């Protein structure tokens, strides 16, 4: 069988660091990139006798996420201890939520959610590598600055069916969370981390195949490539008559190699039990109201609103998934709301091309000038190709669109009267093309349009050129 004969089933587990000022269970400031172990206290070092104190803001952020994702908010949720030993885990257990999470269920962009729960992050374990060998083996060094940072863990149902869908959905999740303002959701800095549970099954088979867990892929590109590589690995195993082993895997983006992280003997028994140092988190109606009051318009809602304005769906998605573009669109629209579709197209095609990998703020276009340019185009004052030239200038140095049109001689040419002699000259210069066109084969029309554009420095309108050409040829 080939890859096409299998159905792929993917569920994601996403850890999001919450943008609180302090850690989940202590008053140390959350930090990134500071000197190691400068943000620790008895609680986050797990000193004997210390006790956890849950952060109200983390609960609030968790509620905002749950409400935004359509989860059911538990009136009473419980923190458990997840017991295991690792040097980055100071207490020998992680305080996490287990069978009574803060948020139950939910849905985003067609993917159902299982839950959203709160927990504490582990510390950072830096592998010292060759720097120091302790009794024959390499040493690692623990920095507890990150330890205890609040995390929201989002678990999806296995509703995703391809690597592309996984990375696309994750982008939607990221922009949704960013819009909520509860996290930086920066994969490079680790404030957004994703694990994928992946299985395949022959098409038509009801039960799911054995799943593997692909850990900590730290960019959107790696997620897509990692999942693809793992699917290919599973297909090869099953095709070869083998069986997929349920295990935790690591994807190396440089080599595309997938390796097993833990041997099977290490099968974990986390011995979850309710954290006796804490009492249940009780969510009052006031807390829910406060979280609701802070919910902004979410990307999917914005997308729908833009489509309702007449914006093409593709452009609407780009504008709402890149909020800074959406904000620009809305600001321009506020100065002239007559051409939403064309304005959206200008921003998501032409402007975005010029921004490239940069920022929206790289554009020097003054507020309102994009909407003006769209208006000039719509009025026929400037042709669409002329408009692109104007945009080059607006982007690079700003200015008034109408003045630029004037100054650079980009005023669109009128109709047939002005164009007829130039088109005639083009037909005369290209008799073979003219002959083909006469037979009704319009394919080489581009040659004529190109000739005219060159002659008019782009001021002519391509559609008008075609129309006049047909007239001249009696078509």
């Amino acid at each position, binding site marked *: 069988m080939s890859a096409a004969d299998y159905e792929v089933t993917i569920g994601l587990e996403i850890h999001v660091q919450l943008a609180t000022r302090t850690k989940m269970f202590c008053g140390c400031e959350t930090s990134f990139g500071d000197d190691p172990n400068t943000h620790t206290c*008895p609680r986050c*070092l*797990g*000193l*004997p*006798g*210390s*006790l*956890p*104190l*849950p952060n109200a803001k983390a609960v609030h952020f968790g509620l905002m996420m749950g409400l935004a994702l359509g989860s059911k908010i538990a009136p009473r949720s419980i923190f458990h*201890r997840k*017991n295991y*030993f690792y*040097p980055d885990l*100071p*207490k*020998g*257990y992680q305080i996490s939520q287990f069978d009574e999470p803060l948020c139950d269920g939910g849905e985003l962009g067609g993917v159902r959610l299982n839950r959203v729960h709160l927990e504490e992050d582990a510390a950072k374990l830096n592998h010292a590598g060759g720097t120091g060998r*302790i*009794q*024959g*083996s390499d040493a690692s060094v*623990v920095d507890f600055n990150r330890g205890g940072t609040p995390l929201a863990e989002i678990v999806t149902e296995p509703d995703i069916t391809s690597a592309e869908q996984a990375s696309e959905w994750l982008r939607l999740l990221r922009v949704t969370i960013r819009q909520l303002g509860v996290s930086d959701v920066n994969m490079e800095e680790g404030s957004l981390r994703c694990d994928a549970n992946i299985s395949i099954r022959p098409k038509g088979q009801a039960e799911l195949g054995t799943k593997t867990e692909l850990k900590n892929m730290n960019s959107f590109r790696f997620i897509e490539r990692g999942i693809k590589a793992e699917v290919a690995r599973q297909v090869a195993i099953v095709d070869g008559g083998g069986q997929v082993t349920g295990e935790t895997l690591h994807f190396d983006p440089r080599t595309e190699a997938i390796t097993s992280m833990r041997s099977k003997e290490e099968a974990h*028994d986390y*011995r*979850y*039990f309710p954290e*006796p*140092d*804490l*009492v249940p988190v009780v969510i009052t109606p006031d807390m829910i109201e406060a979280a609701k009051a802070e919910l902004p318009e979410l990307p999917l809602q914005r997308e729908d609103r833009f489509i309702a304005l007449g914006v093409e769906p593709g452009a609407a998605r780009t504008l709402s998934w890149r909020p800074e573009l959406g904000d620009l669109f809305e600001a321009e629209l506020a100065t002239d709301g007559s051409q939403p579709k064309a304005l959206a197209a200008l921003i998501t095609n032409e402007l975005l091309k010029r921004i490239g990998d940069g920022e929206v703020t790289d554009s020097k276009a003054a507020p309102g000038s994009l909407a003006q340019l769209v208006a000039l185009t719509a009025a026929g004052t400037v042709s669409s190709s002329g408009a692109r030239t104007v945009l080059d200038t607006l982007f690079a140095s700003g200015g008034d669109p109408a003045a630029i049109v004037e100054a650079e001689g980009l005023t669109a040419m009128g109709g047939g009267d002005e164009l007829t002699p130039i088109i005639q000259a083009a037909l005369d210069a290209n008799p073979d093309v003219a002959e083909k066109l006469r037979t009704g084969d319009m394919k080489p029309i581009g040659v004529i349009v190109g000739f005219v554009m060159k002659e008019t420095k782009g001021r002519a309108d391509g559609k008008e050129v075609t129309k006049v050409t047909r007239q001249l040829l009696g078509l």
Partner: protein
Amino acid sequence: MSDLTSIIREQSATEQIAAIKSGALDARELFEAYRSRAAADTFNAFTWVADEAPAALPAADTPLAGLPVAVKDLFSTEGVPTQAGSKLLEGYRPPYTSTAVAKLEAAGASMHGKTNQDEFAMGSSNENSAFGPCQNPWDPERIPGGSSGGSAAAVAAGHAPWALGTDTGGSIRQPAAMCGLVGLKPTYGAVSRYGMIAFASSLDQAGPITRTVADAALMLEHLHGADSRDMTSVGLREPIAVPSRESLEGLVIGVPAELTGEGVEEGVAAAFQVALAEAEALGASLETIHLPHAEAALSAYYVLAPAEASSNLSRFDGVRYGNRVEDADGTLLGMYTRTRHDGFGPEVKRRIMLGTYALSAGYYDAYYGTAQRVRTKIAGDFTEAFKKVDVIATPTSPTVAWKLGEKSSDPLAMYLSDICTIPMSLAGIPGISIPCGTSQGMPVGLQLAAPAFGENLLLGVAHALERTLGFDTGGAIR
């Protein structure tokens, strides 16, 4: 006998504080007297003693007037060794102080020593200490009880006017009983657990071990209070009054059949009957009650406490503090297992094993889940009982202090000695032990228990009985 020794022998902490306040007693001289007695202690009651009095002793106008206090080594004390009876923590000096100790110090108490204990509070005899067993000042061949054995021995020997202990399943009440002292375990949540090294988080409570009921009340008044550093602390609902009750007129005392019959040593049963008769003489009426789940309580406790302990003790991994032992290969797993093998004593290992087993996959419901339900039943038993009676009375321990080594080889026999104190721990209610006589020449304790937050009632009743029972709590002071 010097003046100070006779004061130490004759006066309670409350009386000594009054004497300091009146100018009759010099706080610094008194501190030095206790400090030097503690430094010369031969019962192995202390694991650390101050080198000298602090440069600035709390003023005489503070509530506790600079009076020394001995603190169980389970409490974190900034810069002062805090070893919890464990080799793993030998030499550990925490960077912070527990709330309970900080509160006592804020009220004017001055810590002069840290006391020996069963390792991580696991034990009933103080024999499970990496720093050696502690002896009972009433008979050095006997155990002082545990796990706050050092605290009780220190007070009984006159090496501290009073001491701070902790009680998870009886660890204040039982050693107080065995050393002829007053020991109070408050309502769960009355005293902050912040900085107190956890044994079983849902049961641990700090409390006083003292010479008199008034002393226990005084210390509790300065210990309790909701603490923003401990989410499970609630404090008491009313201030602790100086106990003054003399009559027990109108009081109904419940005597649970399950905890007063079989298994109680003859002499202990006799002393208990004398105490009940005294209560009646003071006007109380007695009623036999039933705590149907009292026996199951012991089993539930030996699931819940080890389960929580197994998790609480996971932090002792040789990474951030404590003693590390590495294996020859320098592996992480070897570092963990060697550190914990060498660092923990046999009883701690046994309970970690028991607790890990009870929480492990496939056993959680049968053990931990079931034990949590038994706890509900026990709390219900007490709720029912307190509809009929005001307080409940039992012997604190079915036996007096046994000989050192007598039960060391039989963990289950040791566990069974906590039968009378564990039900109250599981129900979270306050219990107090006061001396009520002797058996085999050793002190016997009377345990009284009241509904949650009933500390004032409990202390009042205990005070009235203490007056008529007239036990000499200074009997072992030399």
